[in-house]
């Protein structure tokens, strides 16, 4: 009697499903970023953090609009106007806004995106992601995009908005001068957003709990600031480069040429002095922070994902 065929040779199903792998799949980062933001939006703390950022935008907006409207009406009434002072004050507002919003954005991004990688690791979502045509680069870009949208919304977009408002309502004579303020203000905001995003995602890659990452990130920022500022006051000027906010302040002030005739410059005699002496070193310091964040993310993905 003939042996029945081995099971491997039998087809237990009716028919055979054709399979197609046509075309190149769309890139995965945006869906991943969207999922992260959808998750964050469901937390009350996210809305609270965004409200806090909105408050800072409101204060900066009121200050900027107030000054410009005052100049506009005084110029209309025939009173003398000092264009350099008006532009200087606008620069001060932008510089002050970027500095203050850097901190509130740090809190916002920590609250909203603190778990972007940490939660994926804790929840085992990496297994789900990487069973799909998603590369480590796709994943990293998705997380950076998701986290980056937070400072984009809280720092870059308001800077752009404030600039448009400033240009729109300024006296005609100042329009051209304020127009060029947009580039340094936008660059400073973008730099701040970049540093926040990369360091936060890096921190998230090292942790496993969203809340721990958020608290740790904000606390590290504050400790670095406190210790760095203290050392600088004690004469250790090199320590200033270890403070991300101080580095950013240096770059922002340099970009916005703070210290030119402005209300703040009149009130604070040494307003024109940069926090750190060397702008290039401060920029390098910021880039080192960003690189550390990206490095942590890359290291974690190499550890957890073989592909």
């Amino acid at each position, binding site marked *: 009697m003939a042996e*029945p065929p*081995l*099971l*491997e040779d*039998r*087809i*237990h*199903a*009716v*028919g*055979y*499903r*054709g*399979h197609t*792998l046509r*075309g*190149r*799949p*769309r890139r*995965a980062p945006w*869906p*991943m970023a*969207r*999922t992260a933001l*959808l*998750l964050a939006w*469901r*937390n009350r703390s996210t809305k609270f953090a965004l409200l806090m950022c909105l408050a800072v935008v409101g204060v900066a907006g009121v200050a900027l609009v107030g000054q410009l409207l005052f100049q506009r009406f005084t110029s209309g009434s025939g009173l003398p106007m000092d264009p350099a002072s008006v532009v200087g004050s606008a620069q001060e507002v932008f510089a002050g806004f970027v500095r203050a919003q850097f901190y509130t954005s740090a809190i916002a991004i920590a609250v909203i995106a603190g778990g972007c990688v940490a*939660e994926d690791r*804790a*929840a*085992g*979502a990496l*297994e*789900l*992601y*990487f*069973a*799909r*045509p*998603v*590369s480590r680069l796709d994943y990293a870009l998705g997380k950076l995009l998701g986290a980056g949208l937070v400072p984009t919304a809280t720092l870059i977009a308001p800077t752009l908005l404030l600039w448009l408002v400033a240009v729109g309502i300024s006296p005609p004579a100042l329009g051209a001068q304020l127009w060029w303020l947009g580039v340094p203000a936008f660059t400073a905001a973008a730099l701040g957003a970049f540093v926040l995003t990369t360091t936060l995602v890096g921190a998230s890659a090292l942790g496993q709990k969203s809340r721990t990452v958020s608290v740790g990130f904000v606390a590290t920022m504050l400790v670095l600031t406190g210790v760095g500022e203290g050392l600088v006051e004690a004469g250790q000027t090199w320590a200033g480069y270890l403070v991300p906010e101080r580095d950013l302040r240096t770059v922002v002030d340099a970009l916005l040429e703070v210290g030119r005739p402005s209300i703040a410059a009149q009130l604070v005699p040494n307003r024109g002095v940069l926090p750190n002496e060397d702008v290039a070193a401060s920029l390098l310091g910021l880039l080192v922070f960003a690189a550390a964040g990206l490095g942590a993310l890359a290291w974690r993905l190499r550890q957890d*994902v*073989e*592909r």
Partner: protein
Amino acid sequence: MLEARGVSKMFGQVRALNDVDLKVGPGVTGLLGPNGSGKSTLMKLFAGQLLPDEGAVSLLGADPFRQPTALRALGLCPEQDKFYEELTGHTFVEALTRLHGFGRAEAKKKARTAMDRVGMGDYGHKRLSEMSRGMRQRTKIAQAIAHDPPIVLLDEPLTGADPVARADLIDLVRGLGDEGRCVLVSSHVLHEVEAMTHRVVFIRFGRVRAHGDIFRLRALLTDRPYRIHVEVPAPRPLAARLIALEHVVATAVISEGVLEVTTLDLEAAARDIPQAAGALAQVVSAFTSPDADLESLYRYLISAHA
């Protein structure tokens, strides 16, 4: 559809898989083995998440690790149960479906179809945190099949499901196989695997110990005779008649009206026992074999002495 050729995988000093050769075709195949036997490693290799140290894995002829686009043909339902708790079922499935390259509208449509298919259409608006374990299992399966993959890997898909849900999920898995998909199901619950398929892969200590149809594999275990329980009114005369048969190794009356026959040939016994009972004017009211099922096969194959 799925193939492993001489695959070995080491984790440090531990050899998780050792020279595994396996071909899995269309239909449902059960992947069985004790904890730490290498089932999950094999699943991860097929899912392109690990690179074999030796040998090669292919998914429809493509290397899932080096050609991740091949993963568009794969759906994975992992054992892990804790995901994005705050997302609704629909959003969860849609978000993961989009990673296969579908646009938002298309992914949404596919997610809804998949949720309907697993019986979660009416509950997809619930957050994962609000779902029972059975509902979460169904949602996990929905995300695995939403993009209509020809290959589906299910790791412990019935965990936490209530009996009704289990029956539905078993039907669903069988349905996936009947459509011609290659479905590889890893599970510890043997009778549920048996309800899904008769085709199994036994794996232990990283090696494939057996692969094929349950009954055929059982028949290959010639050193392990079958025990058959026969319920007849008077078992002793039947026992005396059966012991004379060549394939019958032993007979024993194990309780009132129940005769245990030990035989080397199940098919011959199924033919001869009713005949012998008939010759004695007895009616066989029950005929069962306690060790011709998957559980006994598993026990024989996986036990340390097997």
